[in-house]
């Protein structure tokens, strides 16, 4: 099968369709995790934000995002530099015009869910202070510009995907399940938004110490992890079949590796928090679980199970440590842990492809040969995410903030976004909060 054109075999289409049907569970899982990690006064707002983000992301992507991303092998704008071609953006029509055949439509369906999942990630980082209207506007920009641009480079036959054929760097930049395209792009957008939004009121004391603002529902968070697990399996399988030309009969390895990466990461985080705080921490362990799933996505079709366990263990170690460093030392108030889990976990997953990835001859056909230089291709992809996508998403959101402020008013933040923006609390029968975490 050729990776540049999605396989049209009945088995591949059936397998991809079944896998795509699972992807909304990943979105539901992330929405539950973000909601559970917030305070009860913002929980309906957080869930509502996730719903609006999904709708806006899918619409924006279909209207113009797909036109920039395109499909591998499709028409694209190419510039010639130093005697080499750089495929930098697709040239597909707006509103999916002309996309009628089944493999292409399946890919668009999968991609519209991927962009929705990616767009939900920043809502966790900006939770409890990000206005709903601004969230929707930022999502439109994210799914119409930022995501499709990098997705074209990595998945749409762009210059990163062709690093293997053009520069002899292994099979080019490989990201089978979206560690970079979905999670790092979403996580870096979360970082840009946290920088623009600032920290929640009361998060830091006058002497600079971070205050613990506990999650309001650990059951939501942990159940969200289980939903995310099912969704990730679908995401990784559909990505491997539709975007990398993997034989549907070998998707069992993807399921095994996805489970191993997530499970080993959660165990590692539980051990780290047990050593660090004398008891395993539920919300951090949940973050570790998702970090393992994120890190395992890029490499899961191309690594043996032992490597998937190792990838998960490192992700489970990185997640709690970076959450602590970001919060305590760098003043990054990220209630959902989106930056550590998705950006840092995703970057580790991309680098892991360069270390552990082994590519069978029948996959990624037409994208170079051998493994020499694969780690350089992965490093170029990571450098592009940090060096181009982060400034781009920061600039776009900074510009948006000038016209449509991201941050809710001080009174709205004190009242809680449920009452302030939606007019009703999520749990009206109960006294759900006090102002103990709010400094007047």
């Amino acid at each position, binding site marked *: 099968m050729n990776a540049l054109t999605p396989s049209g075999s009945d088995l591949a289409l059936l397998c991809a369709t079944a896998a795509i049907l699972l992807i909304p569970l990943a979105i539901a899982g992330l929405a539950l995790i973000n909601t559970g990690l917030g305070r009860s006064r913002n929980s309906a707002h957080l869930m509502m934000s996730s719903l609006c983000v999904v709708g806006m992301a899918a619409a924006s992507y279909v209207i113009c995002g797909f036109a920039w991303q395109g499909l591998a092998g499709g028409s694209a704008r190419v510039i010639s530099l130093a005697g080499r071609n750089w495929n930098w953006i697709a040239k597909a029509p707006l509103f999916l015009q002309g996309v009628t055949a089944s493999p292409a439509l399946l890919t668009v369906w999968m991609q519209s869910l991927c962009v929705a999942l990616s767009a939900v990630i920043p809502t966790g980082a900006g939770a409890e202070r990000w206005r709903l209207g601004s969230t929707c506007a930022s999502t439109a920009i994210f799914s119409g510009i930022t995501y499709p641009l990098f997705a074209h480079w990595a998945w749409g036959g762009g210059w990163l995907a062709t690093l293997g054929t053009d520069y002899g760097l292994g099979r080019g930049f490989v990201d089978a399940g979206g560690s970079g395209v979905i999670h790092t792009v979403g996580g870096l957008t979360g970082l840009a938004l946290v920088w623009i939004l600032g920290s929640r009121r009361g998060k830091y004391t006058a002497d600079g110490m971070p205050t613990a603002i506990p999650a309001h529902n650990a059951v939501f968070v942990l159940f969200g992890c289980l939903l995310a697990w099912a969704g990730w399996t679908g995401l990784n399988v559909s990505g491997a079949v539709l975007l990398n030309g993997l034989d549907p009969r070998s998707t069992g390895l993807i399921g095994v590796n996805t489970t191993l990466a997530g499970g080993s990461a959660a165990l590692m985080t539980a051990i780290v928090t047990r050593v660090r705080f004398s008891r395993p921490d539920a919300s951090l362990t949940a973050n570790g679980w998702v970090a393992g799933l994120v890190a395992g996505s890029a490499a899961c079709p191309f690594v043996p199970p032992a490597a998937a366990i190792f990838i998960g263990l490192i992700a489970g170690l990185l997640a709690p440590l970076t959450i602590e460093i970001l919060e305590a030392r760098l003043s990054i108030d990220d209630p959902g842990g989106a930056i550590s889990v998705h950006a840092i976990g995703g970057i580790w997953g991309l680098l892991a492809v360069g270390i552990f990835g082994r590519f069978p001859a029948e996959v990624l056909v037409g994208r170079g040969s051998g493994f020499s230089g694969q780690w350089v291709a992965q490093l170029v992809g990571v450098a592009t995410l*940090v060096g181009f996508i982060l400034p781009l998403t920061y600039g776009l959101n900074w510009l948006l903030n000038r016209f449509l402020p991201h941050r809710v008013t001080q009174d709205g933040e004190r009242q809680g976004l449920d009452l302030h923006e939606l007019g009703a609390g999520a749990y009206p029968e109960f006294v759900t909060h006090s102002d103990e975490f709010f400094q007047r």
Partner: protein
Amino acid sequence: MKIAGLLLLLTGWFLVLSALVLLRAAWPQALFVLAGVGVELLALALLFRSHAIPRGRRQ
């Protein structure tokens, strides 16, 4: 500081692109890419520092 950090991020990325365009041999190319990543790490340090709330003046 913020603008300098963002510009330095872009500089690091251009360094990586330059390595691909200008260098053919594997090791010099890889070293140049690593140098670009190093510049990006410096830029990130600058950005984190510029966004951190100074001690004693946090919200």
